[in-house]
């Protein structure tokens, strides 16, 4: 199949029309009828595709087991999904300012994202950190940074989502709780979430910070702590999304995501918690890619699978444990830098799919993400996209509006069937922990990612601006570029250096020793981390101390030695 290369649109208006190209375009039909994940679709779906289906048992009404059609009967009539935008711009002060901007413009929840150095558990003055502090998010080195970030935001009113995924999620919670307590809040009333899925984060470039045993230990510490102390807090968002971004297919995304979730669940049960104690606060981060109907089917399948898993495997009795709660992040990997405004179209479809699938919390990518960090304009447009879907399109009036569609129901079954196959495969390898340890999952990711690129190279998948309807490359980004202020970075580095000189070392040392002992005794480390945070221990000091107890180098990058020896 050949396609013409269309050149810059403003040049040469008066060209001759190539009628062969035109006719080819006119008689165009899809070259492949496969879903984005590669499954054949039929020409048409009819009532026969639903033969033998047991509506009550396998689909059910919204708000009823197995929750295929949604976890609430009245869905968005009860409450819209939470419209979130992810914010993280270098220093805590700059990030606070952008967060306030999003609230002003109708954001109903706050997401702050940690930068690379924070996720890696490095302080800004670490040799590896200095070039990159704040490039991709907010850097929180210590209690005072968290205080600056919080500022005057009322923690008892705002639903705050702290996006720290790695083992650094434990210090994040410690810092957040410490600030909240210092400000006089009753932490049992705080609402929000922390991403806290260190297992998956090893696949996002943070392996040094996320060894498997430490991931399970600290991840579960946060979960256990919140289950006991913060009943309104969502203590993990198992991140299927990031897995999908590695190049997986839709059913692989849910299969491996559920697999990772089970690692934590098994640990919490080992610690003596009952499934119904904690499962209601389990949440997921799911991708919505561009194949709208497949994504809807995927999410419906995930709801059904989670419900069955909770009930049948873990013996949950509380129906809240069986409700698959999820946030959607539209697929960053579906966006491209070519003809960037087209991304607005893609994001809108993906967001629509999320809403049609009954999402609880939605974050739209900013159209400029393939170029830079989101601009203010990009953030705003992403938010507006959600608002238009919410208020103007009428799709929120009905729970699971696609339920019953021959195609959707059949595709939902297909997604479940395929995902179960992938889960079985993991079981055959020896379970998820083993699949991770033996790097079986790494190899799977690599194979799949190469497949995805080949699909584009070989025109099996068409993407406008990549392999069809390409134009001359843009010279500028239509709505501007976001930069991170150097000043903000430098001040962050200076800040932590100064802080380290001015602390009460005796108190600090005592708190660090206590944290070390707690970890060594196998007890939950969060309370000790909170205490140490109050003595101005930094993120890397908290993590490094626990790392050493587990036999790892104090410094994930293996350069710095512990100052507490």
């Amino acid at each position, binding site marked *: 199949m050949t396609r013409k290369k269309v050149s810059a649109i403003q040049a040469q208006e008066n060209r001759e029309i190539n009628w062969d190209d035109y006719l080819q375009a006119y008689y165009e039909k899809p070259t492949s009828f496969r879903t984005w994940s590669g499954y054949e679709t039929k020409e048409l779906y009819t009532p026969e595709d639903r033969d033998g289906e047991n509506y009550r048992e396998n689909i059910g009404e919204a708000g009823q087991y197995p929750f295929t059609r949604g976890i609430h009967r009245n869905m968005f009539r009860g409450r819209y999904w939470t419209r979130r935008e992810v914010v993280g711009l270098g220093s805590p002060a700059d990030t606070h300012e952008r967060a306030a901007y999003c609230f002003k413009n109708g954001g109903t929840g706050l997401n702050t994202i940690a930068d690379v150095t924070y996720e890696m558990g490095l302080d800004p003055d670490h040799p590896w950190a200095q070039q990159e502090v704040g490039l991709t998010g907010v850097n929180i080195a210590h209690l005072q940074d968290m205080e600056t970030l919080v500022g005057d935001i009322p923690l008892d009113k705002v639903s705050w989502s702290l996006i720290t995924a790695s083992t650094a999620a434990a210090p994040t919670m410690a810092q957040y709780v410490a600030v909240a307590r210092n400000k006089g809040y009753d932490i049992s009333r705080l609402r929000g979430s922390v991403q806290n899925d260190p297992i998956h984060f090893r696949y996002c470039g943070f392996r040094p910070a996320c*060894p*498997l*045993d430490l991931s399970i230990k600290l991840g579960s510490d946060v979960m256990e702590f919140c289950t006991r102390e913060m009943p309104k807090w969502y203590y993990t968002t198992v991140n299927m999304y990031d897995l999908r971004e590695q190049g997986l297919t839709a059913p692989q995304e849910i299969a491996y995501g559920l697999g990772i979730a089970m690692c934590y669940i098994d640990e919490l049960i080992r610690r003596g918690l009952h499934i119904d104690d904690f499962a209601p606060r389990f949440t997921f981060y799911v991708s919505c890619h561009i194949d709208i109907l497949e994504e809807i089917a995927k999410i419906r399948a995930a709801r059904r699978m989670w419900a069955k898993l909770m009930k049948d495997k873990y013996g949950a009795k509380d129906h809240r444990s069986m409700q698959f709660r999820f946030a959607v992040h539209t697929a960053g990997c579906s966006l491209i830098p070519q003809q960037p405004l087209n991304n607005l179209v893609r994001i809108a479809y993906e967001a629509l799919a999320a809403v049609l699938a009954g999402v609880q919390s939605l974050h739209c990518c900013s159209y400029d993400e393939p170029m830079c960090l989101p601009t203010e304009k990009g953030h705003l447009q992403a938010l507006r996209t959600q608002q238009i879907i919410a208020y103007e399109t009428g799709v929120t009036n009905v729970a699971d509006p696609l339920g019953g569609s021959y195609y959707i129901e059949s595709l939902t079954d297909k997604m479940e069937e395929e995902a179960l196959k992938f889960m079985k495969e993991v079981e055959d390898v020896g379970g998820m922990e083993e699949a991770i340890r033996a790097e079986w999952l790494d190899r799977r990711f690599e194979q799949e990612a190469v497949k995805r690129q080949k699909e584009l190279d070989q025109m099996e998948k068409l993407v406008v601006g990549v392999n069809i309807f390409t134009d001359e490359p843009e010279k500028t980004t239509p709505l501007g570029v976001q930069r991170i202020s150097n000043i903000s970075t430098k001040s962050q580095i200076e800040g932590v250096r100064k802080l380290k000189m001015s602390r009460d070392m005796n108190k600090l040392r005592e708190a660090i020793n206590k944290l070390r002992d707690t970890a060594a005794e196998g007890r939950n480390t969060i309370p000790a981390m909170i205490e140490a945070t109050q003595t101005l221990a930094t993120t890397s000091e908290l993590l490094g101390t626990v790392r050493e107890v*587990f*036999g*790892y*180098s104090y410094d994930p990058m*293996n350069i710095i030695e512990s100052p507490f020896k």
Partner: protein
Amino acid sequence: MGRSNPVNPDELAAGLLKGDRRAVARMITLVEDQDERANEMMKLVFPHTGRSMIIGITGAGGSGKSTLIDHLIGRFRRMDKRVGVVAVDPSSPFSGGALLGDRVRFQSHSLDEGVYIRSMGARGYLGGLARATTDVVRIMEAMGNEVIIIETLGAGQDEIDIIHVAQTCLLVLTPGMGDDIQAMKAGIMEIADVIVLNKFDLDGAGQCLRSLETIIHTGMSEDKGWAPRVVPTIACAAKSSDVHGVDELVQSIMDHQAYLHRSKKIEEVRAERIEQELGLVFKDEVEKVVFAGLKGTGKKRKYIESIRAGKNDPYSVVEEVLSTFLKEEILE
């Protein structure tokens, strides 16, 4: 000094002997490319070689060779030895491309000027790879590396050719390879001076260790002087405290080297190496000179035609060519 620019063998060799890393790199490329200028350079390099400790490591993919090497480099660097590594990947000969990922595992030495690492792909010619490897090892010797580690994949005959250059050969195995071990009994005895049983924390490790020891004991004849040793290791672990057996491995290597020197076997080994190199160079050059030489004369086509027409066969043709060729050459 762009790759497309002409290269002066003398200048390159001089640069190499001074330790100019770029000259070394360029020279290795010429050897790999079987560039016609390579031989001239190797002549200049050769006198400066023959004194290094050469260690070969082979084993199946995923057995942990690169990680072991990473540990070995560290130990030798602590002894203040300069280390050269030739990481050979003979796989994927069909597309001709190669993905050489060993450097990922050598991360901890990525800035150390005392370590020189070169990755080599098969380039679709397995036989030639052995030749190129021997040359590369000579180059690395000449640049002043006191320890040279050759890594290659698998233990087939071609890989054994590659590894044969080494004085001390390590075979890396992992538990769960029981059947394979039985099947390669002879190969093990032939090449391995030290058998590394890596990933010793996996199920079935003890069983595997016992069967290896049995193979060695039963296959061992008393007069050999050195019995292959089995060293259990755990090379790849997230925590340094979980790494085991590396010291023992280094000790075994040093023991083997000591044995070679003590028993004067080292001279035998060096002679064997030269014999092998001579063989490789011979094979290569004769083929190049004779077979490629036929090409220009138009005789090759004639021979092919006559074989195709059933009037001749390859064996007679080679016999004929060689006898006339050798006569002419030697008589000259």
